[in-house]
């Protein structure tokens, strides 16, 4: 961190201070909206300031003190965001927690963080906290937002959000100088104080509490705002988990520093409508969201009339040809420009409108590699979608794609104030003002990740291309070798597979084995719609996945991937020899995916060991029985006989020829 803050835009260094500034400078601008009770309830910055002050003073009267940890559990709601700043104003540290994580996971996090208070959304979360009282002995009081179902609970240590605020207001009314005292309380706060603790749901081991300081967040946020010219007029949609660094930075750090408006949707089932209504100007989504949107578009267009589909395809071709060029400001033929304008009216405009991205100034995707076709699709519509590469430990930003320098296979140049280098083992390392303070109560891990001079190991293998852009290949530890010595980058292969809308998830095996073999999950929406059109009857995912026609279709996709791989000298040796379609969808409830929907490779390998064995012993099918957890928490088991297919591989030389033609 040393010395790098000098170049960043200056300003108030903690969020409570920034709040006061916003209330003063942007007092009448809308700061938060929440779709609740059918309309977008709105709060201006000065209202938000009052709300936070009242709650903060109320918290203080309940006994929240400097250095205390306060858990935040629930879906994106203004009140939960405010709680964080209210806690920060008292010098306490908010710990946002994934609200949908299973009880034991949450109990570990809360216990490890030694939280004293918790602000939660509703009865469900209160019950969850009650059930884990043994593991979280420090927990003293719980504050909830929604009273429903909680009326009959004992309220000695349970408080409604309103009651805490009311207390704060009453105290202020009693003592006119309290507001001033409250402000004085955090006036002395420093940028180097811990602002927040975020637990990373690593793919292995227990979650680690990443401590970020105000400087980390505020400087990174200001840098990002400057980089993309964001100001107080932006609208963002806060819909990603609050415990995730991305949401924390986009919906809080950047929102406060730029004073733009944060919109909380009504619920996850209305998210599409809510996005359309708000039409965010600054939008972030993991590739998965863009994939889903695109799949929806394609599925719906399949059902459209012939003429309409022809028109759609025609204009999409036009967009593919010139869309990105126009977005990048390159000159194109007049006729193409005209056609693109027409397309904008008939297709692109309406599409953007349906997706609610009409007003998007800049959008980012990160977390995983996005399929080049998907990425290109959005950009060709005229949407300034970019990729970034980041981590919790970096307060998100490591590299960003600058406007006009967008390449599908790279994740951009170092963000402002970020230094980047590739370690000898190929691992990407960085140093920036956003670099975290340390892991909470885990110095060992801190030392392993952060060097004494501030460089952080990302754990990703990558290269810096000639143009200065970073290219990520895989997790550093995941890159392996086949027995014949060929390079095996599982994620690379998996991503190629997942770029087919029909394939939802892929897990590749091959490290220290003779050949590459993969598990696949089909996408129920896409394949289901295909099945409907082709009169394929099915009762369940399992039945559809085992259907011979589905297998044939997937086989053609795998073949296409092999063809692609054969064209790349580095990867040609790692073509897929065998594959199977899993009899169930990989699910976070079963521990197969992380809460951010990444596959947990080792867990899956263990769980489906018989299947892996079958992949490598040459058998053509295998019976398996799997335990599953249903949505309501009940356990059950499903059984199936899974078919395994062999694949032809392509000759690298031939691939080259084809590519050359």
């Amino acid at each position, binding site marked *: 961190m040393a010395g790098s803050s000098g170049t960043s835009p200056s300003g108030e260094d903690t969020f409570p201070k920034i709040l006061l500034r916003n209330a003063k400078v942007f007092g009448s601008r809308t700061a938060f909206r929440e779709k609740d009770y059918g309309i977008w309830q709105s709060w201006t910055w000065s209202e938000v300031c009052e709300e936070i002050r009242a709650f903060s003073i109320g918290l203080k009267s309940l006994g929240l003190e400097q250095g205390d940890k306060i858990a935040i559990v629930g879906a994106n709601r203004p009140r939960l965001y405010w709680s964080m700043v209210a806690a920060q104003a008292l010098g306490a540290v908010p710990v946002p927690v994934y609200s949908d994580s299973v009880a034991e996971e949450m109990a570990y996090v809360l216990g490890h963080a030694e939280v004293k208070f918790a602000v939660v959304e509703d009865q469900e979360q209160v019950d969850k906290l009650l059930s884990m009282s043994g593991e979280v002995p420090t927990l003293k009081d719980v504050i909830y937002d929604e009273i429903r179902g909680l009326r009959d609970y004992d309220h000695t240590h349970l408080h409604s959000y309103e009651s805490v605020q009311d207390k704060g207001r009453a105290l202020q009314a009693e003592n006119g100088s309290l507001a001033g005292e409250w402000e004085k309380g955090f006036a002395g706060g420093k940028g180097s104080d811990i602002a927040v603790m975020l637990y990373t749901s690593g793919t292995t081991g227990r979650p680690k509490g990443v401590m970020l300081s105000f400087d980390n967040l505020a400087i990174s946020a200001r840098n990002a705002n400057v980089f993309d010219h964001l100001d107080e007029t932006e609208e963002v949609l806060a819909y990603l988990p609050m415990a995730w660094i991305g949401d924390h930075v986009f919906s809080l750090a950047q929102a406060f520093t730029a004073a733009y408006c944060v919109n909380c949707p009504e619920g996850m089932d209305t998210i599409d409508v809510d996005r*359309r209504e708000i039409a965010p100007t600054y939008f972030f989504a993991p590739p998965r969201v863009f994939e889903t949107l695109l799949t929806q578009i394609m599925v719906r267009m399949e*059902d459209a009339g012939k003429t309409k589909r022809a028109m759609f395809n025609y204009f999409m071709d036009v967009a593919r040809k010139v869309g990105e060029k126009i977005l990048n400001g390159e000159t194109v033929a007049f006729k193409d420009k005209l056609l693109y304008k027409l397309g904008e009216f008939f297709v692109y405009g309406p599409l953007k409108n349906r997706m609610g991205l009409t007003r998007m100034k800049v959008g980012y995707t990160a977390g995983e590699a996005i399929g080049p076709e998907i990425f290109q699709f959005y950009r060709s519509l005229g949407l300034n979608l970019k990729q970034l590469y980041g981590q919790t430990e970096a307060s998100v930003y490591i590299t960003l794609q600058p406007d006009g320098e967008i390449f599908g296979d790279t994740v951009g140049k170092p963000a402002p104030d970020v230094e980047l280098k590739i370690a000898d083992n190929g691992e990407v390392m960085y140093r920036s003002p956003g670099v975290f303070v340390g892991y909470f109560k885990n110095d060992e891990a801190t030392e392993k990740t952060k060097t004494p001079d501030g460089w952080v190991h990302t754990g990703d293998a990558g290269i810096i291309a000639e143009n200065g852009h970073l290219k990520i290949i895989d997790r550093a530890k995941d890159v392996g070798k086949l027995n014949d010595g060929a390079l095996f980058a599982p994620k690379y292969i998996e991503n190629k597979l997942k770029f087919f809308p029909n394939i939802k998830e892929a897990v590749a095996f091959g490290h220290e084995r003779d050949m590459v073999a993969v598990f696949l999950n089909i996408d129920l929406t896409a394949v289901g719609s295909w099945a409907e059109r082709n009169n394929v009857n099915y009762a369940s995912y399992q039945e559809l996945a085992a259907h011979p026609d589905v297998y044939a279709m997937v086989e053609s996709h795998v073949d296409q991937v092999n063809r692609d791989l054969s064209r790349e000298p580095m990867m040609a040796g790692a073509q897929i020899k065998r594959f199977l379609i899993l009899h169930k969808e990989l699910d976070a409830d079963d521990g197969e995916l992380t809460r951010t929907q990444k596959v947990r490779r080792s867990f899956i390998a263990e769980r489906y060991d018989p299947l892996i064995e079958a992949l490598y012993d040459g058998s053509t099918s295998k019976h398996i029985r799997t335990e599953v957890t249903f949505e309501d928490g009940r356990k059950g088991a499903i059984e199936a006989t899974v078919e395994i297919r062999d694949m032809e591989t392509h000759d690298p030389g031939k691939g080259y020829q084809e590519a050359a033609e």
Partner: protein
Amino acid sequence: MFYREAGQFKTSYKADQALMPILQDRIGLLVILAIAFVVIPVLANDFFLTSIMIPFLVFALAAIGLNVLTGFCGQLSLGTGAFMGVGAYAAYKLTTIFPDANVIVMVLLSGVFSAAIGAVFGLPSLRIKGLYLAVTTLAAQFFLEWCFIRIPWLYNDNASGAIEIPHREAFGVVVSGAEATPIVRYFIVLSITALIAFLMANVLRGRIGRSWMMIRDMDIAAELMGIRPLQTKLMAFAVSSYICGVAGAMMVFFWLNAAEPSSYSIALSFQILFMVILGGLGSLSGSFMGAAFIWILPVFLKFIPGTIGINLAAETVEHVTFMIVGALIIFFLIVEPHGFARLWQIAKQKLRVWPFPY
């Protein structure tokens, strides 16, 4: 396609419950109003105003009236013509009794009489439902028609048995009688129709409109939720008849200049009913579309043979027109039983989700 709703969000119930919550709809309405109030008066000739626009608006208003009763409250009525007649005769009598009063006020007042009579004939609706009720409304039709013939007082003992609209001025211009210019008549008819349509839109989205629809959709459930069936239905009859009455009065005052009892015969009832059905039950905009179709189509049909050079006897044209209208009615009922309003709704929905099919 034209609907770009992204970024249109509501921060208050007031905005959420507005008549037209979508910006593009509001623009569309403004365009239509601009055409009606500015473009047409500037460009249209007398024939267009007198033979097309004025009757169209009068009928549209009558259709709104019937739609309130049939489309929104679910009570089928075949007595519309007679209720329009009551308005016409009432307005005529009022202008005779108060020669100096503003004739527009009289026209608006005349609806009160048809409302009262409509409510009386609505009484059976408490016990009689559906087609049975429709047939009983014919009682109103024939009885009132008979009154128009047999009660000379109603037409001031005119030898012809018809009512003839006297010369009247309001705001310094001639508004009724033979000297009234089409443009003045047009503006009066347009204003009254637009005003009543707007007011009805208000009523229909509120408590009263909802209670009508409750009766229409499920009368038993409505009653069990505290709706008094008789009160509610009578109100619908009264409001509907008021509007029809005003339309009937406008019909003779600002369009025909004179009317006989046969002007308000059952044929008129059917004509209005067609407008409502083809336009769309339960839709105000549908009333306009239905009126346009049923009124304007025959006018066009009459001109087609002439313009393409075929000489047909006027009589033959009339017969063919009848056939075509009858066939088209059946055709449209088959294509979209819920009327043009539904067609527009579907089209609008398509435009809203464009380029998707749903």
